[in-house]
């Protein structure tokens, strides 16, 4: 890990710090990679599309079919592209939320799932489905509410004499998340057999239910959230060294913490409402970003967003092609890739 950071440092140029140009180059490269991933992913699926026609049509942003049949056009622009864009939004949201939590709580293992936030959002979504089933807006709103409530619960639980130290927060997070997990399981057992099946699938992360009304919201939140978190990147850099030090050096710890909690809840809520719990993204992607680009949040948050998008697009492409025409939940793939990857990263550290 030290060698990698020094290699990363060497990349930065003569001095080791993160510069604006280094950030621009990294973000630019990742952004291009993301664009490429979107294009490549839209060319594969359970149905074959003629590559040249598909590329041509993509280049025209869907204005001309370029020889694709009406079905093929629909498959490309009404099924694949929205799903891929949702994957990118979900990946970006979860990765930046994870990166922020890890910096704020000074714990590389902090992750929306572990802190109970994913489950809070899941419970919120379940309530929305049961009581406001028809209304699509119910889901992200209640998911956000659920995530926020879970965050506040974790925070209150963790408050001790010395404030809510990172250790207590993680502990409280584990308590809340396991409690909410059992609530979810309990509610699931009360459901009838058919609902159980679809719910279990959703809980594991499922991007197949891409709603065209909510997709713009997911993208907007992902972009907005990443920007808001990046705007606090320098404060997070100091918070990473300890709340006391950050306070002494001029960081408004309380307000920054509140902003991070609220924005991260928004990000996690919108992801979970759209696609269930896609695990490991908030853990593995920020790790990889920090390893290769350094711990400076000014570069690792935007790059985690782009990297997260890449990761989930890749995972979802596998999920929907590997046993085509059947599908696997994307969360299963992210876990299959993420868990061994994480073990490897831990060993290198």
């Amino acid at each position, binding site marked *: 890990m030290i060698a990698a950071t020094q290699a990363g440092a060497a990349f930065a140029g003569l001095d080791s710090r993160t510069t604006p140009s280094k950030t621009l180059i990294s973000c630019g490269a990742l952004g291009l990679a993301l664009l490429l991933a979107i294009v490549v992913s839209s060319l594969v699926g359970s149905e074959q599309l003629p590559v040249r026609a598909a590329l041509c049509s993509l280049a025209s942003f869907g204005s001309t079919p370029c020889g694709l049949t009406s079905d093929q056009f629909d498959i490309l622009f009404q099924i694949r592209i929205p799903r891929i864009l949702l994957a990118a939004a979900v990946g970006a949201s979860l990765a930046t939320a994870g990166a922020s939590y890890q910096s704020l709580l000074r714990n590389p293992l902090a992750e929306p799932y572990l802190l109970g936030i994913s489950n809070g959002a899941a419970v919120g979504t379940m309530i929305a489905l049961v009581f406001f089933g028809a209304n699509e807006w119910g889901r992200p709103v209640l998911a956000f509410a659920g995530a926020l409530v879970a965050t506040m619960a974790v925070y209150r639980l963790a408050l001790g004499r010395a404030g809510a130290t990172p250790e207590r927060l993680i502990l409280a997070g584990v308590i809340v998340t396991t409690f909410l997990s059992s609530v979810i399981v309990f509610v699931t057992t009360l459901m009838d057999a058919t609902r159980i099946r679809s719910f279990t699938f959703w809980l594991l992360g499922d991007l197949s239910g891409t709603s065209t009304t909510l997709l713009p919201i997911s993208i907007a939140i992902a972009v907005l959230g990443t920007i808001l978190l990046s705007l606090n990147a320098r404060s997070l850099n100091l918070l990473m060294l300890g709340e006391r030090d950050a306070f002494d050096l001029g960081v408004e710890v309380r307000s920054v913490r509140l902003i991070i909690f609220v924005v991260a809840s928004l990000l996690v809520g919108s992801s979970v409402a759209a696609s269930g719990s896609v695990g490991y993204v908030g853990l593995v992607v920020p790790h990889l970003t920090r390893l290769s680009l350094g711990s400076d949040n000014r570069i690792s948050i935007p790059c985690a967003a782009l990297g997260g998008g890449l990761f989930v697009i890749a995972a979802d492409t596998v999920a929907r092609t590997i046993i085509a*025409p*059947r599908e696997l939940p994307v969360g299963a793939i992210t876990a299959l890739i993420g868990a061994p990857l994480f073990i490897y990263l831990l060993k290198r550290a």
Partner: protein
Amino acid sequence: MKVGGTFYLFPTLHNRKRLLLISFLLAVCVATSCNTNLKDRVQEPAARVIADDSGKRVALPPKVDRVVSLAPNLTEIVFAVGGGNRLVGDTTYCDFPAEAKNIAKVGDTLQPSLEKIIALQPQVVLVSTASQLEVFTRQLQSHNISVFVTDPRDLDGVFRSIEQVGEILGETEKAKLVVQRLRERSTVVENTVKSTTPVRVFYQLSAEPLYTAGHDAFVTDLIKRAGAISVTADVPGAWPKYSAESALAAKPEAIILPTGGSMGEGNLTVAEPLRKSPAVTNNRVYKINDDHLVRPGPRAVDGLEEMAKALHPEVFRR
């Protein structure tokens, strides 16, 4: 102690010893036979052995008075062959016929309560392969409760299950009659649709996430007999989660929406990728009671008839 007249044949010197020995042996006999009676009270000599669908040869008493059913389709079959009054326990999902609701519940299909089953003291437990077999089969057998597994995969399998249950309950004649009638009805359907072109059908189990019937689903057989082809008939598994693209590309001519039975009021809308399919354009979306389509029991023939009539109205207009 006088035991018959033999006692007096023994010389008086050994009377007491003999007395002790015989009473001791007697006591042992009584004791052992008492023990045996406790264990084998329910077990009459195993007069019959019937092979079930898992390949096991199941020992059954000559007369079965108490049976528990662990699947809704088996409950329906038990009632159909006239064994309803001998059904002492069924699952929470068993709701047909109406009397089935009043039978003592032992839990659901996947996780029945062993305690409850044992407390009802059945002689046989009828099981469909949906349950967790291994764990409780052994437990039940140690209480001398036989476990009979049925695994109907298609309509012929249903007929076989009816006959098996009939044999178990000693209602072979009744069962034969039931099967005969059902067979007649299904043959009528199949003959009627023989002349038609098979309709390409999509069976939508749920819209979001999109689930359909695969190769191993029971309803796939019914669809075939109803004069249709399930576009997902070759997809491995019973209830695969299906890709939206493939659903769109399949362009089914008709869509079956199972709803209204155990599934409740859900599944009333066609999934998004199918909205532009010929089925929707030509208004060939049919809602059919899901219990008639997924329960491998007598009502499957109802389902067959309903599907066939919906898909080929022209040949059923009489």
